[in-house]
């Protein structure tokens, strides 16, 4: 049986760009709760929160992809809770949640090398809507456990990982 990929996207903003993730990965959207910081963690790991009884890390995508290196956190800051392929719950901090979009995943533009911001391996592709571009993130790839562990080890020496690898 083929894996049916959802063709509905939840779009959100990081800085001025619009990004999208597949809606079937999203569990809930919540406002910024009390986050318990983890000592010695990477800059983009804000800490852990309680997501329906599970201890879920909170990752600030803005810091992760160098959109904003020192963002503000208010009680209105948005967290998108996603569930990865291997059933881990993770909270993603974004600037704002925009909309839902229907896309045909087969008709995406391939992701170009975008230079400094996000390495193409983290993208599923680009999608154009009314002259607007939506960057579709490969959330399982970004939140891959090994990948995160590798990055968190590097972060201490190289603050701008993506600048270095892209």
């Amino acid at each position, binding site marked *: 049986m083929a894996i049916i990929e959802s063709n509905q996207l939840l779009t959100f903003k990081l800085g001025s760009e619009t990004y999208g993730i597949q809606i079937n990965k999203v569990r809930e959207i919540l406002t910024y709760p009390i986050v318990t910081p983890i000592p010695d*963690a990477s800059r983009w790991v804000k800490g852990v929160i309680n997501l329906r009884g599970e201890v879920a890390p909170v990752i600030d995508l803005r810091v992760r992809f160098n959109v904003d290196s020192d963002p503000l956190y208010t009680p209105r800051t948005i967290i998108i809770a996603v569930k990865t392929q291997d059933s*881990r719950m993770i909270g993603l901090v974004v600037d704002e949640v925009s909309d839902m979009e229907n896309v045909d995943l087969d008709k995406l533009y391939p992701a170009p090398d975008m230079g400094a911001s996000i390495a193409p391996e983290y993208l599923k592709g680009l999608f154009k809507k009314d002259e607007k571009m939506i960057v579709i993130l490969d959330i399982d790839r970004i939140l891959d456990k090994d990948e995160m562990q590798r990055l968190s080890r590097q972060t201490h020496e190289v603050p701008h990982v993506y600048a270095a690898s892209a």
Partner: protein
Amino acid sequence: MAVFDINKYRQMFLEEAEEIFETIDIILLEAEETNSMDNETINSLFRSVHTLKGNSASVELSLFAALAHEIEFFMDRLRIGQLSFEESMAGLLIESIDTLKEILELELSDELEQGYYDTTKRALLQKLDAFSEESHEILTLIEHQEEEKDDFGLLLPFDEEGVFGPISGIVEEDAFGFFDEEASEIGDDGFGFFNEETLINSPKIEEDAFGFFDEAYVKAASIVTAPLDEEEYFGFFDDIPKMIEKRDNEVKISKKFKPESSSNSIRVDLSKIDGLMNNIGELVIAHSMLTQYTSTMEDQKIKSDLSERLDLIDRHIRELQESVMSVRMVPMETVFSKFPKVIRDTAKKLNKKIDFRHSGESVEIDKAMIEGLTDPLMHIVRNGLDHGIESPQKRKLAGKLETGTLMMSAEQANGQMLIKIQDDGGGINLARVTAKAVENGVIDEHQASQMSNDEKAMLIFAPGLSTAEAVTDISGRGVGMDVVMSNIKKLGGTVKVDTEEGYGSTFTISLPLTLAILDGLTIRIGAEQFILPLSVIIESLNPEAEMIKQIGDNTSEVLMLRNEFIPVVRLHTIFNVKPDHEMLTDGLLIVVRSATQKIALFVDEFMNQQQFVIKPLDRNFRNARGIGGATVRGDGTIGLIIDTMNIMNKY
């Protein structure tokens, strides 16, 4: 419509089969030991095999099912009385069940060759048929003749003290059996595997609950003759005074497993129970939110009425939490029951005599721990059998009983589970272990000379250390004891070993009762709070200036506490938080156990003590150093649990 996935059902069958095999093993081992099998036992065996047959056929394991059918057929004859139970049957049935297990494994992995299957089945059938077709007397005689040439067999002149009366004859011995001129030694063996027989006609005797007749032997049982009439488990050889003395020293420890009936239990995936726990956690949080809301109400009447009802709900939630926790708990029997079979097989392979005892099977343990615990225990036991307990000859020379004793016990003490594995073997050769450790570079000679015996004994847990001269398939590859240590640590426990050369070793494993709940103390450093497990805390104090000593360049501080020097760890630097106090004398020092030593943790203050439900952190991260896990606090926020074991690695 999904494709019918046979593998899913096979997996279910396999899980069930493992359980059934375990039950069968227990019954058969007991039958072998007591030489008897009542109707009820035979019936339950028959049902077990029948279930195996039926279920295996439904998951298309036809070869396995066919073999199971043959065994079932044999059992059926036993059940309806066409055959009567003989002592050798238990052994043969154990062998048959082993064959079944092997076939199941091969068939599941698709590696079963028809030729091999046919030979195995034929060989087994021959043995089974031997019971039904041939005359017992003749068969036993023939078998008996062969038996005398058996590798394990020993011929000893009949005992001279005349314990057995004026009849002289031949006494045999096999791997398990044991007999000696010194009658006194016979009785020492609680497990009593020996076999005596004379070839001269004597009246038949009744043997109950005493002899452990090995499979081949037992065939001779119908002509076993000895003028001992009322053999009982304990009262054997009562007429010899020295035996009684020795007997009295022995404590009878339960050796029998009572297989639980499985009819009123269900199989539940552990993750479902975890899900339940999470739901209860949410309930607790919702409750505390409501309580908080109530406290802001202005109408006093409504407020107190509501509080009262909320208290009631609180109690129910707690009870619910406890009930769900208890679902996770299973008796230690589940762990112990895996051992008699392994020990019997290993002992046979090593040609040693082992008496396995255990106590505390009703002590309950977290189901999630069993998996992690079985391997280390198995390893310690095998090591004990291989290296610990000496060969019967050696033991005799050392003036010990030929049969070694391996004792396993479980108890709860101080909120911890203690599991002891004790053998009366040769103990650990500390000099050799130390030499080997120096040779492998685990420690240097200077360290070696400074070590106490206890510390030396702990060296066996160092990686890559095996003092066994020969590598056997049982143990000796030097991987293992370090794995034992790391597995136990993973469960939040510790291992200790006490050994005395020539007298045996005792391994003591202490474990938390459950993996899910932790008694903890909340501590505060600046604005952050952390949870410290109560089990590691030794004491806490507000230090005086003169108790603090600086070492070297003033960066390391030690606490001098009653002639002990304890390194001070400033938690705020490790966790990178801003503390209220920088001066050690302003805050509190908590002395805790770390991996091998005591350390003093510097904190601003400690808050309250309560129970926490532990959640793993490392599903998403490498474990942050100094942090062992997380928990959801009453208000819904996450608290981090300090792990004192790896806190020192930071430096």
